[in-house]
């Protein structure tokens, strides 16, 4: 029997609220199955299971807020001798699930409101992701809905029954409280970053003509659904480059740097109405550009509708932030702890450039690196940016 715990979905998360169980006791589960939805400061997040077996018993009721690491359910793991509940275990009723009413008592690690302004329980709106999505589509302010779920959580049925609150509500579908929570989550992570991580910054301008021409050439033959964006090349080049410079890919925890074998690139996506998240594109170094592009489209779509998975939030090993065509030339990144590096790409702009011995207008992109001086130095950081530049000159091999 193993415990399924409230996961840590980022360095700044101390507790989460169980919003919804998606499977019932007795259901067979396997690694990667989404079995619950947890509400955090980053919004509702789907939680995946890492064991394989049978969901034995739920230990936490919906609506309860519990600290990271709290057992949420018991899972009878497959492959263990005598799979299936033993008679003794089945006969024992076990402790009752943690009820929602013990919310505060069960969350001793919850920061007091003074530590995380804006995260007070009063301002929260509990809602299932389906309800949240529909509310956003219908332009309904969640905070105005009286939920019929556990602890007043807003359920899909509540939204179906509700009417949009007029044109004004339609223009502001995102509840103000969720924006405040997003801001306080960003504030907590970024304050920790600036407090703990001795950043150093490097900048380098790379010729982007080859990458742009290659993308245009590839896209000319494709229908819109299959087209690539330059951002996919930036992510792939970064993922490949850190394979050669492992001190930029991993986590700094407990005074130690732990390099990561896999390269999970956190891709910064802005959220309409305010805030941003950088969920992971897993194993970005091994994906083809088409797979990477499909992953990015999927991720952006789900971020915009407020639905991403626990593993995507928890485990990026490095972040890439690309400002895109409406951005500016240079981005100075702030590292997302416990990561140790963030690579930024500015807007591609035309500049007078020397190419083959002649001055000519040329599209260029400014690449930046913010990295953790506890783990690496500027010399290696410079080599990393040069490696990304080199890879971008051969887009066909990405």
């Amino acid at each position, binding site marked *: 029997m193993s415990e399924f715990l409230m996961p840590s979905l980022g360095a700044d998360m101390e507790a989460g609220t169980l919003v919804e169980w998606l499977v019932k006791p007795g259901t067979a589960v396997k690694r990667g199955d989404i079995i619950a939805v947890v509400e955090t400061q980053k919004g509702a997040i789907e939680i995946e299971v890492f064991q394989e077996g049978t969901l034995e018993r739920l230990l936490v009721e919906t609506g309860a807020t519990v600290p990271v690491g709290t057992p949420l359910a018991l899972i009878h793991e497959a492959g263990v001798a005598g799979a299936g509940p033993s008679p003794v275990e089945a006969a024992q009723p076990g402790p009752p699930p943690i009820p929602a009413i013990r919310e505060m008592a069960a969350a001793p690690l919850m920061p007091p409101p003074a530590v995380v302004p804006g995260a007070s329980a009063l301002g929260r709106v509990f809602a299932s992701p389906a309800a949240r999505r529909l509310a*956003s*589509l219908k*332009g309904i302010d969640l905070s105005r809905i009286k939920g019929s779920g556990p602890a007043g959580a807003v359920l899909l049925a509540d939204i179906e029954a509700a009417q949009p609150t007029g*044109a004004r509500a*339609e*223009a*502001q*579908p*995102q509840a103000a409280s969720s924006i405040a929570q997003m801001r306080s989550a960003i504030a907590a992570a970024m304050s920790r970053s600036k407090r703990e991580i001795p950043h150093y910054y490097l900048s380098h301008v790379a010729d982007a003509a080859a990458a742009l021409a290659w993308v*245009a050439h590839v*896209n*000319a033959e494709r*229908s*819109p*659904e299959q*087209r690539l*964006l*330059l*951002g996919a090349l930036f992510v792939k080049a970064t993922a490949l480059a850190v394979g050669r410079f492992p001190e930029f890919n991993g986590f700094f925890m407990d005074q130690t740097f732990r390099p990561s074998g896999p390269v999970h690139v956190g891709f910064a996506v*802005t959220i*309409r*109405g305010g805030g941003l998240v950088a969920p992971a594109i897993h194993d970005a170094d091994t994906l083809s550009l088409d797979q990477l592009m499909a992953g*990015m*489209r999927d991720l*952006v*779509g789900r971020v*915009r509708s407020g639905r991403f998975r626990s593993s995507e939030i928890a485990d990026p090993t490095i972040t890439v932030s690309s400002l*895109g*065509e*409406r951005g500016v030339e240079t981005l100075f990144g702030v590292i997302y702890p416990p990561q140790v590096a963030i690579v930024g790409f500015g807007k591609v702009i035309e500049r007078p450039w020397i190419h083959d011995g002649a001055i000519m207008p040329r599209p260029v992109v400014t690449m930046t690196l913010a990295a953790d001086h506890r783990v690496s130095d500027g010399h290696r950081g410079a080599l990393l940016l040069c490696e990304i530049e080199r890879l971008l000159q051969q887009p066909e091999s990405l």
Partner: protein
Amino acid sequence: MTDLDIRTVIQHELRRIAPDVDVAAINPNGDLREECDIDSMDFLNLVAALHQRLGVNVPELDYPKLITLNGAIGYLQQKLAGA
């Protein structure tokens, strides 16, 4: 398909991409990316949706012609009439 129908399709897709924007109130001659605060991924999704719904495959080279709402309506009308 009339201009009105095409406008309705574009506005519907813009609402899906930018649910917080009052699409009916945007400047029809303004840059859609600015009017709706959309990035290149959003714009690609718009072009993909127009392809799905209207069957018009807009090549990248023609993107500048879709930069305003009125421009997009005129471009799509022409394409649909020619098809």
